[in-house]
């Protein structure tokens, strides 16, 4: 396990993801930000990483992580983060 490397990938992917999810949240409703953060936003994050940081994948490959394994980890972590925040949002705001 390389937790610092996973954390770095998680932050890099979610930088693009958060910008996208918050933008949609401002336009529609922040409910959608939470939904997007753990779904379509990850795809946007992946495309952003692919566009600006693609070469850095070789760091992860050499540590034994494939793209699909990295994305599964990010998806799982985002789901883990989104669900409680979404519930709080629904209970407090709605």
């Amino acid at each position, binding site marked *: 396990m*390389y937790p610092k490397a996973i954390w770095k990938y998680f932050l890099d992917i979610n930088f693009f993801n958060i910008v996208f999810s918050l933008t949609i949240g401002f336009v529609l409703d922040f409910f959608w930000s939470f939904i997007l953060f753990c779904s379509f936003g990850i795809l946007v994050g992946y495309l952003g990483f692919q566009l600006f*940081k693609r070469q850095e994948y070789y760091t992860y490959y050499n540590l034994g992580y494939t793209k699909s394994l990295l994305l599964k980890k990010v998806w799982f972590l985002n789901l883990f983060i989104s669900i409680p925040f979404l519930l709080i949002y629904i209970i407090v705001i709605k």
Partner: protein
Amino acid sequence: MNLLEVNQLSKSYRDKRILNNINFTCNTGEIIGAFGRNGSGKSTLLKILFGTLKANTLTIKINSRTIPQKKIIPSKTIGYLPQHSFLPKELKVREVISLFFENGDAQDAIFYAPRVASFDSKKINTLSLGELRYLELLLIGNLHHSFLLLDEPFSMIEPLFKEIIADFLMQLKKTKGIIITDHYYEDVLKITNRNFLIKNGNAIHIHDKNDLIKNGYLNSA
């Protein structure tokens, strides 16, 4: 002692055959040089062996056990130094070292390597080409892969770093098998045990500079 066996490696792009039935082996303790003109398929060969580019046909065995291409990265048996820099540019050298190595002793192996102390507090995007290439090689070389694929480790490197890199590779080959491609053929020929030239998709065995001339990789003058 580990053995990498590569058999029937072929790769085509549309109608063009880049690599045609390449076969070779690499043992622990060996450095194998792969030469070829630009576009001959050297980098393609390494990417295929690392599993990031799909071959048309290929059988890879490690210690007589067949390993599918998609399992090469998760198996952590083969490391790869790509031609272009791959380290996160916004991080400092010491932060990058801790990305690759959690353990203090493993980190110290990098920090106390020759010349690293002179640039370990710099950011990656401020390193010279020689410092960056050397750091990348140290990081990949100190991971626990049995085999290493190095794409142009000597390119554009100042002579002092070339010597350090050559010494490091000679140390590494005690525990790993190494396949190296580079146009700096003199630096490569100094450290390799065996060599081949990729020409028209085929691998031709090379013994020395004269063979490179004979096969049209170098001019005779």
